[in-house]
Each structure stands twice: as C-alpha cells, then as structure tokens.
C-alpha cells in the first residue's frame, strides 16, 4: 500500500509545477504587461479585441494563444513581436501594420537567436516583413496567412525571411503581396512543404547560399519572376507547381550555380521560361511536365552533367534553347509533342533522334529582336531544312531515345 502511494505521488508530481493560464484583455499595453508579469512555462490566452502595441518582447518560454484572432496592431510605427527565448508557441493572433523603413527590416514576428519556436495559425497582414527568422533553429512556421498589399512595392519585404538558420519547417502557409514569398539565405537542412505563394513582387521562393534544403508540394503562381535558386548545393525540388510566371525576365525556376540537386515530378504551366539553368552541375531533371510555356528549358552552355529523363514537353513554343554548341548534358526518354519520327520496331522509342533546339531558338538567343519574325513562312522553311541537315542547331543536344507516348505523370 505504501508503495502504491509512493507511485501515486510520483505520478502526480508534475502537477506541482504546472504553469498558470492567464487571460489577457485589451487595455493600455496590456499584452506587453501580461508577458512581463508571466513566468516561464505560463500560458497566455489573448482575448478578442484590438491591442495597439509594438516592440513586444517575448524573452521567456511562453505559450501565447489568441482566441478569435485578437488584433495586434503596430500602427505603422515599428516592429511588433520579438521572440528571443526557446520553445515559444505563438498562435491564433492577427499581427498587422509594421512600420516601413529602408534602413531596418521591420518585421511583424521576429524570431531572433532562439530555437524550437512554433508560430502557427496566425494572420500576418500588411507588414514589411511577415515572419523573420534570424539565427533560429528547429523552428516551425505553419498554417499562417501572410499577406501584404503595400502600394510602395519596391520597399516591401519578404513574407517569410530566414537568415542563418537550420532545421526549419515552413508548412502550409499562404503568402502573397510581398517582395519574395519565402526567402532563404544561409539556411540549411530545412523543409518547405505545401505552401502557396502567389502574386509576390519578385520571387515566390528565393534561395541564396542555402544547402541541403527540400521543397515539396508547393504552389508558385503569378509571381513577378517565379522561383530563384542560387548558389546552393543539394536542393531537392519535388511535386511543386509553377504557373503563370509571365514577363520579360520571368522564369518558373531560375537556377544559378546549383550543384547536386533534383527537380522531379513538378508541373510547369504557362511560364515565359520553365527552367532556366546557368552554371549548374549534376542536376537530375526527371518526370516533370512542361506545358504551354514560351521556353520549356533554357540551358546555358555553362551547365554540365545534368540528366533530363522522362519529362513531358507539350505545347511549348520552344522546347529547349541554349547559347552555345557544346552540350555536356544528357536528354533521354523524354516525350516531345513536336517529334515526328517513327517507331518501326514498336518498342515505344522513336528510331531517329529528336533535336529539341529549333533554329529559331538559336537565332533569338543571339538576336532577341528576331522574335518578331517567329512563325513567318521563311522561319518554317529554315526549320524544315535544319531538321534534314543540322548546321546551325547544336547537334550534340539531342534525345536519342525519344518516347513515342506521353508519360503518365
């Protein structure tokens, strides 16, 4: 019996250090005061209403839960919430109206030198920067609505901005109207999953010097110039959708100095350029769909050791363009809707190679204004002649085993 009692005492002992739950009501700086008064491990339930407060510092481990989206309004003055302690949970708030400045990065929610933060189910509206992570590790940012519709688009910041972080999870957020939807600089080992990034001024997603990251199942629609992945290694891009990235300098994906990465199972629809590659090494591009793009792929002569396998190319004005005659990449088993070869042995593979770079793709690469004559009679003749006797087009760039049938992807 005594032993049983001891066991009971042991089981109940966590109750002794149970944190308190405090309700916070709107009032003069009531939110900041409640945080200052709270102890580590406490929970604050923020009641509905408007809290006109800014520069709110969360410097101890707290769980802050907004009920029916209380509004934390920075009144365009300054930054709003700073998280500087580990394991802070921030959820259910509507954080809005940071200040604007060209000198400091004004953020609605800033996680600074802290780990294990969980920021979820918030509405982050009309801010310069939405969620700003700086020297943060193992943080999760999920299910947030991050929107901005600032008129001065040039001075706007990024929706989710991460700088010198690792092991982040960015999941299920909807981001629009910022400069870059999601921006990664010096961020490693992180995952970006199922986000929807639309109508951002520059890029839907922007990677700089960020190695070994994964982004999957995201949608990037109608952003200024698509997605840029630059100066990084080991980036894995799977199952994403890139749509309507139209414009003179717009790409669905811009790859610059990328190595050892994978681009697979993605969907590229109606982009000016589907995939633009410059100075890349060892990229696997497989089982993607390129549909109705201006250029499906632009691969510069500075790219090497990349494999393009089992992709579908349907309805693109140009399938592939390049700027040189050297080609150190392999194209194999792709389906090209413009392929007009034959398959006598009926093994599903065309018997003659397909040259995906058309004469006009070569010409416009050198003289962009020549585009004005595209689809003229002369151009058609040139195209037919080149098919018989390749002289201008890079004859090393070919698919020796083009698929006769569209891949089911």
């Amino acid at each position: 019996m005594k032993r049983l009692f001891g066991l009971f005492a042991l089981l109940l002992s966590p109750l002794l250090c149970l944190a308190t739950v405090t309700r916070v009501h709107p009032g003069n700086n009531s939110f900041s005061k409640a945080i200052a008064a709270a102890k580590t491990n406490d929970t604050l339930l923020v009641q509905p209403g408007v809290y006109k407060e800014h520069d709110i510092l969360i410097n101890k481990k707290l769980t802050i839960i907004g009920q029916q989206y209380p509004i934390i309004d920075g009144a365009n003055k300054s930054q709003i919430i700073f998280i500087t302690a580990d394991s802070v949970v921030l959820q259910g708030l509507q954080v809005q109206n940071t200040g604007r400045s060209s000198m400091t990065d004004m953020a609605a929610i800033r996680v600074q030198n802290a780990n294990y933060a969980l920021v979820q189910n918030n509405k982050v509206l009309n801010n310069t920067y939405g969620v700003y992570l700086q020297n943060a590790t193992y943080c999760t940012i999920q299910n947030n609505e991050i929107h901005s519709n600032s008129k001065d688009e040039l001075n706007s910041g990024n929706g989710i901005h991460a700088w010198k972080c690792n092991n982040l999870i960015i999941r299920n957020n909807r981001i629009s109207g910022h400069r870059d939807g999601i921006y990664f600089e010096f961020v490693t080992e992180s995952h970006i999953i199922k986000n929807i990034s639309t109508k951002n001024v520059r890029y839907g997603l922007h990677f700089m010097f960020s190695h070994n990251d994964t982004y999957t199942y995201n949608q990037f629609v109608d952003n200024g110039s698509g997605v840029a992945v630059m100066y990084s290694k080991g980036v894995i891009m799977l199952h994403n959708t890139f749509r309507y990235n139209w414009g003179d300098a717009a790409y669905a994906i811009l790859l610059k100095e990328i190595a050892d990465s994978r681009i697979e199972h993605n969907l590229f629809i109606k982009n000016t350029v589907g995939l633009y590659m410059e100075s890349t090494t060892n990229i696997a591009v497989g089982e993607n769909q390129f549909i109705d793009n201006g250029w499906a792929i632009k691969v510069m002569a500075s790219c090497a050791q990349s494999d393009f396998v089992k992709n579908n190319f349907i309805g693109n004005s140009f399938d592939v363009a390049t700027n040189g005659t050297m080609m150190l990449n392999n194209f194999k088993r792709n389906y090209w809707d413009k392929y007009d070869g034959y398959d006598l042995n009926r093994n599903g593979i065309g018997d003659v190679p397909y040259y995906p770079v058309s004469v006009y793709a070569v010409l416009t690469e050198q003289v962009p204004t020549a585009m004005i004559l595209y689809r003229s009679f002369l151009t058609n003749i040139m195209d037919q002649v080149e098919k018989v006797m390749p002289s201008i087009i890079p004859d090393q760039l070919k698919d020796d085993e083009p698929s006769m049938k569209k891949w089911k992807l």
Partner: protein
Amino acid sequence: MKNISLLTAVFFSILFVSCKRTFQPIEYGKEACSHCKMTIMDKKFACEIVDKKGKVFKFDDMLCMKDFANDKKLNDEELLLFVADYKNPDSKFLDVKNAYLLHSEAFKTPMNGHIAAFSSSDEVSGSDQTNAQPIDWSNLK
C-alpha cells in the same frame, strides 16, 4: 525640297540621339540584373554599365557589375559606370570613379557585395561609418 532637307535633318538628329552613350533609367521590379539574373529591386544599390558601343547593362549590386566587367574582360577606360546614390536613391546616379565607396557588412545588398556609394565622404552618417572600409572601383575584387 525643303521638306526633304527637313526630313534628313530629323533623321540624322534621331540617329545621333540614339548613338549617344548615356545613362538609361532602370525599371525597378521589371528588369533583371545582367550578371546574376535577379530582378533589380533595391534602388539603393543599383548600378549600370554603358559600354563603348552604347550598349547598356544593369545590375542590382556593385559586386555583379565588377564580376560582369571582369568576366567579359571589359576595359574600364572605355566604360561609363554608374551607381545609385545610397543616400538619395531617387536622384541622379553617380559616376563610380568619382563616388565615395564604402564596404561594410551593414549594407545588405542583394548579392552580398556590401558596398554602398556616396556622393562624397561628408554624406556618410555616423552609423554607416562604423566598421566600414573605404574602397574604390579599381581595387574592388
């Protein structure tokens, strides 16, 4: 006859205007950097090269401009080099060779060049001065 001479005059004037090597304004948020291909967004750090034929190249960071000039082996003497005034980004661009350039980690340029241009050393405010190194175009690496 008078008409024809007028027409030729107009024709030649257009010809000369188009040949003049001069600064071309940058459309922010639309045009891409000639080197890194990123869209030029930040007015404070934009810069531009006009080469000897009058061809214009625009950049988002001074580092890109330098790398571009090195890659293409352009001769500095033949180029017009412009850079945005960090303090007055909406005013006229500065000539790189006459501008006062500072390198500091505090300048968050798009490509981590960390270089800002000022019209003169008097223009630099105290906060920008800390940990900053003056440099010039020719010894930029």
